[in-house]
């Protein structure tokens, strides 16, 4: 095999494309990679979670002493945005259940709580449904096929999570799979069906059976469509453009509501609630170690910070999932996810030399680490003047090969991907796409029990903000299952557990505790969190929010 390389040993986009086509036309095609690699060693050497130089130890809070990424520590150990003086004149609204977050988990929780007869307010930072849920493409796992069982689902999930997940949580998750699909269908969600009207299923990386049900390559979007409609048609009071900036506590330190920064009115509102469900999603938009991210604009880890300050314990803070197949070229689409459905349908991953180097159906962390290894060891594509980007790097996702083996599959099954190709001026049936791992999912989060309760009374956490279900690595399709399954459970038990007498007092005393700890440890008080928006959004929350009636007349986000 002839190999194109620059004199300095790197392989440019065009050279790699040449290598690819050469190998594709050869008689042997792309033979399977040799699979004798030591997976644990691979993760240790190349997975970003194992890079000790990017880690630090937490100094304050319930997880004091734990290791985590420096950027996570920065937000967890920052000062609050709120001072007691900010609340003078802030309106107080009372409710039974407050849901913070307007993605899939928040909607499912709010719907169930409202159905149980509680007064429910759902606040969301942007607009209802504007979340990571809509970006889920691959599908949702449920053991509904003949020969598949919840036990196999359990085994796959536990194994993929490196045997560190909470078994009780997985048990609840897998047992709830079929019922969750039934509920979604009742809400009006569509799935791809065979000619008899049965649900179509497919395999995902790391699963032992066909277990993923899906709708085209926009399962999450379809899910969010029906959830949004259901919420709009329910009694849930939805507050758009209303990020939570702090939780409230009562006289016993239990959660008693939240302080909302209303972006439209530019003022703070206190919501006094009997129980609070935090469903704010993950933290990808802090771009750990400068990785591109597939995450939604709002994924700034707000819920993690709020719960931590109130004393909730977190887990697996050093564990993130890097989706192996994020777009690496063109750069303005960098981080955009290419569904794993493509790999589960049989697409190969090929390095710049035209070789397969990993079993594409291995769990995400293995595949991602293998891609990083190829690039670091000089077998990846690197940026050049032709691509207009110097820090670009990646490997090929072989869409032309997949199309050649299954004519028509791209158009039928992956219309969104074809669109993505067109946007990049690439015909993906002819030219492979350049990919690189993208920061995708926060594996850890707030420690919860099987109903989504955190360690703090009155505080529930569901969805990506919670931890323990996926251990240290998540299987495709388990996130959509988790948000609905645990969202619904939390909604029901939040109503059941609510205190009938309400809170005697609502305060922000826990913030004083945080400040005390920070002062005693001589830590800087300059940083503020929750971030609310990524740094590059340059949104100044303080400037745009007051507690009084005097609106500043300007609101950076909502154009009002």
């Amino acid at each position, binding site marked *: 095999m002839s190999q194109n390389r620059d004199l300095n040993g790197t392989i440019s986009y065009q050279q790699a494309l040449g290598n690819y086509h050469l190998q594709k036309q050869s008689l042997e095609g792309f033979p399977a990679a040799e699979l004798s690699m030591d997976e644990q060693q691979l993760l240790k050497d190349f997975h970003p979670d194992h890079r000790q130089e990017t880690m630090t130890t937490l100094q304050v809070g319930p997880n004091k002493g734990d290791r985590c990424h420096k950027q996570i520590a920065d937000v967890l150990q920052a000062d609050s945005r709120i*001072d*007691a*003086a900010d*609340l*003078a*004149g*802030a*309106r*107080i609204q009372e409710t039974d259940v407050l849901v913070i977050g307007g993605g899939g988990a928040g909607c499912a929780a709010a719907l169930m709580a409202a159905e149980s007869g509680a007064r429910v307010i759902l606040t969301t930072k942007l607009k209802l449904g504007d979340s990571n849920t809509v970006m889920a493409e691959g599908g949702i796992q449920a053991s509904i096929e003949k020969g598949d069982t919840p036990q196999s689902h359990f085994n796959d999930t536990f194994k993929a999570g490196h045997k560190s997940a909470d078994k009780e949580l997985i048990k609840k998750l897998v047992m709830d799979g079929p019922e969750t699909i039934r509920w979604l269908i009742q809400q009006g969600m569509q799935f791809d069906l065979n000619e008899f009207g049965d649900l179509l299923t497919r395999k995902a990386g790391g699963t032992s059976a066909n277990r993923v049900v899906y709708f085209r390559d926009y399962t999450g979007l379809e899910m969010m469509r029906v959830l949004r409609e259901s919420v709009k048609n329910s009694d849930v009071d939805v507050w758009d453009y209303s990020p939570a900036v702090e939780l409230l506590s009562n*006289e*016993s330190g239990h959660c008693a509501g939240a302080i909302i920064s209303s972006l439209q009115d530019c003022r703070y509102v206190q919501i006094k609630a009997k129980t609070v469900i935090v469903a704010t999603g993950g933290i990808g938009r802090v771009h750990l170690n400068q990785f591109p991210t597939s995450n939604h604009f709002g994924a700034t880890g707000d819920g993690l910070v709020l719960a931590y300050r109130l004393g909730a314990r977190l887990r697996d803070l050093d564990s993130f999932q890097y989706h192996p197949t994020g777009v690496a070229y063109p750069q303005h689409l960098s981080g955009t996810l290419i569904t794993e459905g493509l790999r589960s349908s049989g697409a190969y991953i090929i390095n710049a030399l035209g070789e397969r180097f990993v079993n594409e159906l291995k769990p995400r962390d293995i595949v991602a680490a293998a891609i990083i290894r190829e690039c670091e060891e000089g077998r990846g594509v690197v940026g050049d003047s032709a691509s207009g980007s110097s820090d670009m790097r990646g490997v090929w996702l072989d869409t032309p090969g997949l199309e050649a083996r299954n004519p028509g599959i791209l158009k039928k099954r992956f219309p969104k991907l074809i669109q993505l190709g067109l946007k990049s001026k690439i015909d993906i049936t002819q030219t492979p796409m350049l990919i690189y791992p993208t920061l995708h999912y926060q594996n850890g989060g707030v420690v919860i029990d099987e109903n989504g309760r955190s360690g703090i009374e009155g505080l529930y956490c569901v969805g990506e903000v919670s931890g323990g279900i996926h251990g240290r690595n998540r299987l495709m399709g388990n996130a959509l299952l988790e948000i609905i399954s645990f969202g619904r459970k939390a909604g029901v038990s939040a109503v059941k557990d609510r205190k009938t*007498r*309400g809170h*005697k*007092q*609502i*305060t922000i*005393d826990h913030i*004083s505790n945080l*400040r*005390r700890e920070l*002062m*005693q440890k001589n830590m800087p*008080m300059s940083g503020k969190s929750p971030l609310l928006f990524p740094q590059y959004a340059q949104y100044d929350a303080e400037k745009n929010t007051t507690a*009084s*009636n005097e609106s500043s007349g300007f609101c950076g986000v909502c154009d009002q």
Partner: protein
Amino acid sequence: MNNVLLHPDSLGTNLSEWLSGNGGTGLEKALSDPAGIISIIKEADLRGLGGSGFPSSKKWQFVAEQSANPDKYLICNGNEDEPGTFKDAHLLTHAPHQVIEGALITALASQINKIVFYINPEQTTSLDNVRIAVEQWETCSLFEQLQAQLETPLSIRVMASSGHYIGGEETAAIESVEGNFPFPRGKPPFPAVSGVHGCPTLINNIETLANVPHILKNGAQWFRELGAGSSTGTKIYCLSGDVLKPGVYELPMGTPLSELIDTYGGGMLLDKKIKAVFTGGASSSILTPRDIDVPLNFESVKERGSSLGTGAMIVVSEGTGIVKRVTEYVNFYAHSSCGQCPPCKTGTFYISQLLNKIDTGQASEYDLESLINLCKILPGSGRCHLLDGAMQVIDSSLTHFIDEYKSSLRP
């Protein structure tokens, strides 16, 4: 600091450790001369540390003079539910034996045969630890000697109170012990004459009782010398709010407020300026920076127009809205009113509405006038102290921070 009640020798739930350290001697001395107990307590000038500051010896004497009908009760009051107060829970959790020994000596002094530990239900560790501690006492030889001396079986019951704020009031506690909702009763008859099931009943705060074994052991003179200036004994102060190191501090009674905040509390959080201190929990009035030198004892704080109360000091820094704080406290009272006395039921509700209106910038000058008028009319019109407490804190905030109220009004 922490010389007596919170001294390491006073802590722990193991009875034999307590008896081999600070404990046991006080009860032994009491058993050798039961008739002399009250005079020692009187000489020591032990006060009710739950907020009243009433001389304990007088209360004990009243009950001692009553004849059993057929029983006599001692309620050890650990209902403690005021914002900013957490000393009794701390004592019961970490040092239950001195409290129990204090209760036993008190029972001997006033010839009481039924002791009830009445503890806030949210303090589950306190409840557990007291139960463990009581079981150990019941099999102890000193307990047998005490029963022999009393010439009647002595029972100790540990019960969770209802968790209502008003449950801490003496007559409400009596209702609660009888198994009823804690509605405060009218007085007279006073509990010393007719309390639980019509029997003479003595009610003492946990911290008061905890001091008793130490006084008996070391003598009245020793206790008097513990205090600063003319005060006697020590006091557990609950320091909270915007200070660097909040917590419980046992200091000589009469320690200046500034020393509590600066020396023990580590100064102000974020080095902000001090704006006000709510003394004695929320039901007392406000001290301002010019009172920072006040010795924290019953008389001196009273001279400054406030009261020591339970010894809770909630420190508020510049930047905190006083109207907001007062509103929070009054909301607490409105929530806690038992609804028995119409002036309290409607009064606390109405003033909490008014304050919320002022705090959120919706109120007019007329609303503020209504509030000021209500402060004159309402006090004294409830059976218990709840309404007065609520009005006192408003009245005091109006005196010191009227400008802040005015600036919150609608133009």
